């Protein structure tokens, strides 16, 4: 055993004794300085390592490392003993303090519903298209087979601009714009804002949002329309929802239907929302009128198709049980952040 190893063993013993009797953190720090610090024993020994004969170097090195570790261990144990005694005094952080909340965004219920509608119809191969909100009378009425004296054209129902154009009263003009620019088959939805000259109340606003659907192809039937709406109803409100078609009238479809969903609130038993009928009117639809097809240059003998329209606000109100449409346009963040 050489001198260095002796010195190491001695130092380890000393250090362990000192560590065992340490009463303060300063005592442990002094041990570190004396043995492991830059001017301490171990760096000094390390410098002497060169004088060790080569055959002893391996053992000496091992002893050196083991000694250093033993001292470090003694210091750690002592430190742990010191803190253990003080454990009840060190409280750490108060984990019950309020966390730092990241800001969370909220999608407006109208957008949520529009997004979902578009997503559902996208899965069926519909592409979303858009059209202007400042629309001409031709696209909003004439091309949609609306008689020149149809009440919907009245000043009290439709907003007119000073240049004779209008604020579109429906998303249906997008049908015309798409058919004018695309050869059949076409398969689109058109979500967007529409305007009616209604004084805002619980169920009306100056504007609201619709999503229009249009599919023109060979041999499209009312059964196809019904099936797509049934698919939509189930995707939107769950697998138990039923739909009911009722005959109705729209100038741009023939046959025309209105479609109802079985009440999404009471499941069809009857409640306030469905006025005890068990059904909720969702919107209008039908087979595209041959006159409309002719207007855009489609041959009604070859092509047929369906169109439908949904009110986004109505869906949002139904699904989220929102009692008053005005809440949707009031933008109170306490309301918006519920969704």
């Amino acid at each position, binding site marked *: 055993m050489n001198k260095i190893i002796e010195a190491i063993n001695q130092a380890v013993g000393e250090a362990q004794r000192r560590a065992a009797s340490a009463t303060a953190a300063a005592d442990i720090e002094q041990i570190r300085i004396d043995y492991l610090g830059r001017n301490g024993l171990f760096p000094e020994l390390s410098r002497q390592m060169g004088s060790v004969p080569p055959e002893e170097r391996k053992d000496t090195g091992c002893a050196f490392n083991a000694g250093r570790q033993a001292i470090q261990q003694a210091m750690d144990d002592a430190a742990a003993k010191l803190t253990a005694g003080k454990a009840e005094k060190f409280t750490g952080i108060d984990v019950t303090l309020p966390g730092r909340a990241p*800001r969370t*965004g909220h999608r407006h219920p109208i957008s949520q519903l529009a997004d979902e509608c578009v997503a559902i119809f996208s899965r*069926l191969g519909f592409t979303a298209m858009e059209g202007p909100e400042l629309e001409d009378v031709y696209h909003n009425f004439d091309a949609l087979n609306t008689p020149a004296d149809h009440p919907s054209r009245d000043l009290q129902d439709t907003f007119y601009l000073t240049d004779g154009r209008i604020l579109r009263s429906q998303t249906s003009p997008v049908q015309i714009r798409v058919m004018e620019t695309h050869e059949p088959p*076409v398969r689109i939805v058109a979500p967007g804002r529409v305007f009616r000259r209604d004084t805002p109340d619980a169920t009306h606003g100056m504007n609201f949002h619709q999503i229009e659907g249009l599919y023109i192809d060979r041999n499209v039937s*009312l059964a196809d329309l019904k099936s797509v709406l049934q*698919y939509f109803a189930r995707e939107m409100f769950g697998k138990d929802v039923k739909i009911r078609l009722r005959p109705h009238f729209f100038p741009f479809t023939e*046959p025309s239907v209105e479609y109802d969903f079985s009440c999404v609130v009471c499941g069809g038993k009857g409640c306030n929302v469905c006025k005890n009928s068990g059904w909720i009117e969702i919107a209008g639809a039908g087979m595209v009128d041959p006159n409309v097809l002719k207007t855009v240059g489609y041959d009604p003998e070859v092509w047929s198709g369906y169109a439908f329209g949904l009110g986004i606000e109505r869906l949002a109100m139904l699904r989220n049980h929102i009692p008053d449409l005005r809440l949707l346009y009031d933008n109170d963040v306490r309301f918006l952040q519920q969704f």
Partner: protein
Amino acid sequence: MNISREWLNQYVALNCDDATLCRKLTTAGIEVEKVESDSTVPAGVVAARILDRQVHPNSDHLSVCQVSDGKETLQIVCGAPNCDAGRIVPLAKIGTEFHTEEGDFKIKKSKLRGVESSGMMCSAAELGISDDNSGLMILDESIALGTPIADLYRGDTRIEVEVTPNRPDWLSMYGIARDVSCLLNEKATLPEVKLEESTVANDALVTVEAPDLCPRYIGRLIKNVKIGPSPAWLVKRLESVGLRAINNVVDVTNFVMMELGQPLHAFDLAKLSGGRVVARRAKDGEKITTLDGRNFTLSSENLVIADDTKPMALAGIMGGENSCVSDTTTDVLLESAVFNATNIRFSSRRLGISTDASYRYERGVDFDMAEFASRRAAQLILETAGGVQACAPCEKSADRPAEPVIVCRFERIRNLIGTPTTNEEMVDIFRKLHLKVDEITETSCRVTAPLFRLDLTREADLAEEVARINGLDQVPEVPVKGTVCHPVTEDAYRKLKTIRDAVIDAGFTECVNYSIIGNSTALTDGRFDENDLVKLANPLSPEVAVMRPSLFGTTLGTVERNIAHGNRELAIFELGKAFCANPEKFPEERFELMLLLSGHPHAERFSQEARVEYDFFDLKGEIEALFARFGITRYRFVKLENDNRFEPGFAAKIEIDGKVVGAAGKIAQKFVTWRNASGVYLAQIEAQAFFDAERYVRREFKALPQFPASNRDVALLASADITHAEITEFIRRSHVANLESVKLFDVFSDEKLAKENLCSMAYTLTFRRADRTLTDAEINQAVDKLRERLEKELKLTLR
């Protein structure tokens, strides 16, 4: 349109209950909106026979009866004196709910003085059938046990239906009866009219000078009528559909209109100068006072019924005050006419009068019905007001319009509605709807529509009839099929959703505002003036009359309302359309993105942290993060002066590739109408900038660095006028060798520096090469060169 069940029943036997009738109406397209039944008898009360009556063991006025409803025998304790065995009486079974003026109650199984009772036998008064409360209501022996009493004493039911504009033929009891007859497989019959016509001709009674506007006019003269109240049956009919009784003659005209859909008018002959009527265009400026006392000035576009001198009625809309039937009337001229629908609609709209008559005329009345209705009304006037027909009816008619003839290809109809309806079924439906069908072959038939079905002109219209009468519930559900028609890249919604998603991900709450706003709200955004606004010709009110030129005005309102409600922490946005009438400023319609921050980013925390408020750089950071997400890198924030939206000195315009795409800053104090609020930071960005970027964003892989970077710090004293951007731009243009990035890490100023208009700025320069580790010497050389240029060319002092 109101339907009275009792009244409807006069024309078609209603062999079903109210619920079934309403369901059938709705599924056939006559949508029932409201049902009101007069019936007071609750469901659950049935006819039952008293089998046995015993004296109650514990009472001298109660009886214990065994009662059978035909299915079961129940023990009922009864206090009525007449509950004799053998009688058939109404029995309210357990569960029956009574709704009375005193309150609601439900029949339950109970014990009366110790004896069990399973129901209640009822008096007529208890069922609301009469006032008789002296004992049990005794029913006729012929009534089958178990019959619901509500079926026996139903009262009338008023059904309110929505009639679509294509079906004016549904605007009468008989018209509804015609469709109901098809739905219930019963025959619809017109009322019987027996009228002895006078043989005295009076061709001068009616003159039609405008046959284009009045294709048919039938006038009758009834003399010596006695005006008075209508008989009870007539009053009841009118009231059952919500009309008010006036006098016998007027009531008859209203009754026949509701019965047959043909509006009628009665003139007081004594008030007609010349004793005749002329259907003519009004002279320009001609005036009339209608019988509701309103004055109108007419033009040649209005049709009037005039006497020799002046208008006596607005044809098809309302009679004149000067010619109406009154208590003193003795002779009546009865009008039954067909007017041009478009013209009536025009006049009604222009003059702002809508009546039951104009409502029917503008939708189109049945050319053929005018004659029958005239006879029917004459008969009823004679019956209720007496008098005699002074002459034969005077009719002036254009040619009867041709009935539309439609070729119906059976296969085509099946293809359109997707049901396997057979040829025979289709023909049957058409016939039941009173359509004429002939030339039936294997593949098609010819359908002639009567004149009351103005809506049937094409094959598609017949398809609707088949679908409607068959029931749309018969349309099968088939697997969803369809062609993929458009590439997804055409999808217009995706680009909006991409922006919306990004902003919501960043923690903003979405707002949606109306896009029609007030002039003053619109002009709060000083970028726009009056001429830039898209204006409405017919606003709901003058205060809400223009399309928003930007989202600024409505956003101010949103903030104000929220702060008024105590919502001080706002991170909101709107992505919406804005409109501009001036193409030099903006496209007519464009999407704008508005971002807004106000309040405290960490109000949920405490102490100093909770008091920190959003500032300009929070907003700028959000915008930069958004740009990064869209791959927009070549943008700049440039100090914005003279913009009324923002507080001077706290605003920037945002440029991408040198083009202004928006602005951001602190909202000018003058707009802050709310109290105790933090600063409000708002950005408006043209959504087009994102659309453009999104379309071309391509993220390309860049190799990760293989060699370490080295940093050098440079601190400099700059004039406070020089911007961070100018310094970094200068460094960028200096093309310092191997410089990878420049980062500001400190800005410092104290009183002493401020006095000299100086500011200390410290930057970390990061150097790196892709192919090797840089040596200290070459980095130092580069930094020294840069320091020299900064001192010389930018006149900065390096520290």
